[in-house]
C-alpha cells in the first residue's frame, strides 16, 4: 500500500502510484533535480534508494522492491541479468562517464598527466578498490595499459568509493587520484588535470533496466522514458555525465 501517497492537486488525475528506483549514489543530485521536474508531469511517487551499486545489487538479489535499477557499472547489472531478475529488452546504457585525473592543490602544477604517475613528486595515488569499485577497476586498466601497474604499487591508496578518492585529494592527503568527471566537479581545492584516454579502459557506462518483478512496470517505464528526454539529458550533462 502507499498510505503516504498524497497527490498534488494540479497534477494529472490518475491514481498515484509508487515507483521504487534503485540508483547509484553518484546520481543523487542529478536525479533529485529531475524528480522535481517529473512531479509536474506525473503524480507517480518516485521512491529513490541511493547507495553504492554493489549494495543495490545485493538488495535486489535478496528481493528488495525495485522497479527500475540504474547501476554505475556494467558488472552489477550483468550479475542481476544473469540471475534472471532483469527485463532484458529494457536494458540500456543510459549514461557514460569519463575517468579523470585530479590533483591536490599543492601538487597541481607538478602533475601534468599520466606521465606524472611515475614521477618522484607523486608520493601517493588514490583510486577506488579495483575489485569492488567500478572506477577502481577502470583505473587499474588504465595503469595496465600504460604499463606502469607494477611500478606504482607502492604509491596506491585504495578507497571504498570514488567520493573517498575525492576527499583524499581534496584534503591534501593524497597527491592525485582518478575519479569520474561527474565527481571531479565537486572538487573544492583540488584541480582537474586531464581526462584519461577513453581507450585506456573499458567503456564507462551506467546501464539501466526495468526489473522483472517490478510492481509498477508501466509507471517505471514512463519515468525511464522521461530520463531519455532532452530535459533529462541536459540535466545529466550539467552534472558531468555523458548521455549515450
Amino acid at each position, binding site marked *: 500500500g502507499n498510505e503516504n501517497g498524497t497527490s498534488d492537486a494540479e497534477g494529472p488525475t490518475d491514481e498515484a502510484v509508487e515507483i521504487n528506483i534503485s540508483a547509484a549514489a553518484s546520481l543523487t543530485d542529478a536525479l533529485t533535480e529531475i524528480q522535481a521536474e517529473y512531479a509536474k508531469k506525473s503524480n507517480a511517487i518516485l521512491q529513490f*534508494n541511493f547507495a553504492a551499486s554493489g549494495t543495490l545489487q545485493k538488495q535486489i538479489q535478496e528481493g528488495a522492491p525495485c522497479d527500475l535499477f540504474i547501476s554505475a557499472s556494467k558488472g552489477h547489472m550483468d550479475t542481476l541479468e544473469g540471475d534472471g531478475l532483469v527485463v532484458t529488452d529494457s536494458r540500456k546504457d543510459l549514461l557514460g562517464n569519463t575517468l579523470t585525473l585530479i590533483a591536490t592543490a599543492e601538487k597541481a602544477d607538478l602533475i601534468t598527466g599520466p606521465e606524472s604517475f611515475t614521477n618522484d613528486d607523486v608520493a601517493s595515488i588514490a583510486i577506488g578498490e579495483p575489485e569492488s569499485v567500478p572506477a577502481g577497476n577502470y583505473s587499474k586498466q588504465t595503469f595496465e595499459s600504460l604499463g606502469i601497474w607494477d611500478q606504482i604499487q607502492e604509491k596506491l591508496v585504495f578507497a571504498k568509493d570514488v567520493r573517498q578518492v575525492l576527499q583524499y585529494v581534496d584534503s591534501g592527503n593524497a597527491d592525485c587520484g582518478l575519479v569520474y568527471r561527474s565527481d571531479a566537479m565537486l572538487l573544492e581545492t583540488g584541480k582537474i588535470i586531464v581526462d584519461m584516454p577513453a581507450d585506456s579502459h573499458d567503456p564507462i557506462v551506467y546501464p539501466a533496466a526495468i526489473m522483472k518483478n517490478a510492481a509498477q512496470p508501466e509507471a517505471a517505464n514512463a519515468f525511464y522514458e522521461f530520463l531519455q528526454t532532452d530535459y533529462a539529458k541536459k540535466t545529466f550533462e550539467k552534472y558531468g555525465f555523458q548521455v549515450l
Partner: protein
Amino acid sequence: MLAPIILSLKIASIATVFSLILGVFFAYLINKKNVPGKNIWETILILPMILPPSVTGYLLLIALGKRGWIGRFLLENFELQIVFTWVGAVIAACIVSLPLMYQNVKAAFLTIDPIYEQAAQTLGSSEGKIFRTVIIPLAWPGIISGIALSFARAIGEFGATLMIAGNIPGKTQTIPTAIYFAVESGNTELANTLVLIMTIFSFVLIFGLNTWLKNKNYLDHKGRA
C-alpha cells in the same frame, strides 16, 4: 530535513527499548541463571559489535529478505515486509546496539551484593519481584549507561541500516544516512547542520540520563560534607 530527524528518533527509540528488554533478559539469563555455554552466548551477542556493520546488514538482508527464511515467513504469514522499511532499520539498530546493552547490564548485575536478593527471598519475594524491586533498581547506573550507549549506537547506526532499510528519502533515510551522503556529495552545509542536530540530541540524552541517574542514586559520592 525534518523527515530523517523524526525517523531517526523513532527508529532509535524503538530499537533502544527492544535492546533494553533483550539485553536485560540475556544478562539475567546468562549471569544469574547460569545457563551453560556462557562464553558461547556472549560471543554470539558481541559479534554484531565486531563485524563491520555493512556485513551485519548483509547477513540481515539475507535472513530477512524475501528469499531468507525469516523474511519469507513474515511475508507469507503476516504480509510483513522488512527490507526497505523502517522496521528493518529498527531490527538493524537493535542488533548492533544489543552488545552494548548486554555488557553494561551484565557488569551492573555482577556488582550487586547477593545479600539483598537473599533478604528479599526471606521476605517472601518471588524471583520476578526480586528482579523488579531489587536487581533492576540496584543496577541502574549500568542500565543507564547501556541505554545511553545503545541509543547513541542506534541513532548513529548507518552501515547495517543502509543495507537492510535502504536510503529512501522520506521513508527510510535516517540522519546518519543523510549525513553520509551529504558528506559524500560535498554538501557540507547540510552535513554540518545534521551533525549539529545529532550533537544536540546527544546532549539532551546525556543530560536526561544523568539527571535520572542522580535521582536514583543512593550512594553519597559528593565527598565530605
